[in-house]
């Protein structure tokens, strides 16, 4: 036989016992050519395109699940940033389009549709402001629409006027939804990639073709499996083992992504090799770090361990695919990762340590519940801190905070399903108000002058 029994069983065991799956296939769709002065026609063109391609995406993905025996967990759609396509429309157009996108996603069997957002790193147009103002309405009245805002970049610096607005917008969204759930569908970025397949931040960037099929592989469980088996090797050896594993799962992702794109007759975009945790115990990134020898995620050494882990994943992934893109970092969402959640509960992990972790490897402060009475300027300041790391270091960073109404530090909150459960994190009681309210634009760092 061309393959040894051990090779075949290695792949089989990954799917049967280590939760190996394709986390998401996300079809990016250009909506610029749907723009029409008549909002009714505009919405109807958007609805038809999204439902048509959405249904096909779900059907074709299902066929490949059968063919390869690897579950494809989420089938999603990202669209052109909505603020761009509503520039010439009336004030209520963003909200109306959001309702259309929500209905189209539901009718096509798509669980989340991304792209309700704007790129405002240097300033806001009138349409951008309309969209930002509509976020509380949209995120409290729709079910499947995900929103994003890019407010900083290495080239442009950071739009602090937008950051000020976000503090109040995020609190407003939280106040209008149970347990602040609306905030779980809203991500704020610096250096947001245009081809990210993961929600809530996915959008179909302006440099993209009409369609682009992007795939997010997953493999915390598989990586955990090999780390668990290799308790005695040194860190060089461990890096090598993780690298080999990442190579294999990226190759599987690339195969499925390319075939799905061909079957849909759309261009293949990228493979995002992020380690994306889920609420399953065996699917925790924190769990991998702990198996590496850290007693509890957040203890000294966690940053180094996570840096080694994602570096090995990137090296394996880069060898396996010429199309690595999207976020391709480690996700360390607190509520969605059982190990992260335990570390918060036991006092091992603070928001300051989470910020440090994002400096070397991960993509941001993700799914963190904070007290409902956190001042809006403090929320803006946390966003500014996190995004500064991205702006200065030329990497993507994002923030998804949930100020849970009526809850204080240490309280428990359950967001339900894949969004998980968590404990409210303690936030510094000292004020950043006077700094944040200065507004303006943080200039781009000197590292941006590369020409």
């Amino acid at each position, binding site marked *: 036989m061309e393959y040894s029994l051990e090779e075949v*069983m290695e792949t089989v065991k990954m799917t049967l016992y280590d939760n190996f799956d394709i986390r998401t296939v996300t079809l990016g769709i250009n909506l610029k050519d749907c723009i029409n002065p008549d909002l009714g026609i505009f919405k109807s063109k958007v609805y038809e395109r999204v439902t048509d391609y959405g249904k096909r995406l779900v059907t074709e993905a299902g066929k490949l699940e059968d063919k390869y025996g690897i579950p494809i967990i989420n089938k999603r759609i990202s669209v052109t940033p909505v603020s761009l396509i509503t520039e010439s429309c009336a004030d209520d157009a963003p909200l109306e389009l959001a309702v259309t996108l929500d209905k189209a996603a539901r009718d096509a069997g798509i669980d989340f549709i991304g792209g309700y957002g704007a790129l405002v790193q240097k300033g806001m147009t009138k349409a951008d402001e309309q969209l930002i103002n509509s976020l509380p309405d949209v995120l409290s009245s729709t079910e499947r629409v995900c929103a994003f805002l890019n407010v900083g970049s290495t080239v442009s610096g950071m739009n602090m006027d937008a950051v000020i607005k976000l503090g109040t917008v995020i609190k407003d969204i939280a106040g209008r939804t149970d347990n602040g759930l609306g905030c779980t569908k809203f991500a704020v970025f610096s250096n947001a990639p245009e081809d990210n397949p993961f929600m809530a931040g996915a959008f179909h960037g302006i440099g993209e073709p009409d369609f682009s099929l992007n795939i997010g592989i997953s493999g915390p469980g598989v990586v955990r499996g090999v780390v668990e088996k290799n308790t005695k090797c040194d860190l060089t050896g461990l890096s090598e083992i993780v690298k080999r594993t990442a190579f294999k799962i990226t190759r599987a992702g690339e195969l499925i992504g390319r075939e799905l794109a061909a079957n849909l007759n759309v261009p293949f975009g990228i493979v995002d090799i992020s380690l994306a945790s889920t609420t399953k115990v065996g699917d925790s990134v924190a769990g991998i770090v702990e198996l590496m020898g850290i007693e509890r995620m957040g203890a000294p050494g966690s940053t180094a361990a996570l840096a080694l882990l994602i570096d090995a994943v990137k090296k394996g992934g880069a060898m396996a695919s010429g199309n690595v893109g999207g976020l391709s970092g480690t996700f360390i969402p607190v509520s969605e990762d059982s190990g992260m959640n335990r570390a918060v509960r036991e006092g091992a992990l603070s928001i300051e340590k989470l910020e440090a972790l994002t400096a070397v490897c991960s993509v941001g402060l993700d799914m963190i519940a904070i007290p409902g009475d956190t001042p809006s300027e403090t929320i803006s300041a946390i966003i500014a801190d996190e995004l500064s790391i991205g702006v200065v270091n030329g990497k993507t960073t994002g923030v998804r905070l949930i100020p849970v109404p009526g809850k204080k530090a240490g309280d428990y909150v359950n967001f339900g399903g894949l969004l998980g459960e968590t404990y409210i994190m303690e936030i510094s009681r000292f004020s950043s108000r006077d700094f944040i309210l200065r507004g303006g634009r943080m200039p781009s760092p000197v590292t941006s002058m590369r020409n």
Partner: protein
Amino acid sequence: MTKDLVFITVIGKDQKGIIARISNAVFKHNINIEDLDQKIMGGYFVMTMLADMSDSGIMIGDLKKELAQIETDMGLKIQVQHENIFKAMHRV
């Protein structure tokens, strides 16, 4: 004609009739068995069967549903996966 190869893999407790029942199921759908390997790994019986589906009219999804009956009856784990996934993961 180009082959359409799948791996049927079985993990479980060794017992009489595993290969017989699976062979019978694939034969019924005109699927040719190309190769077979089996051994005891970590106390479990494991078997890989390489089968060519090019002359068969059945879809992989439907074959899986039929094999699921054997899975339940005999307390086994049975997977059916197209050969391409093994090529992608184990061959450069």
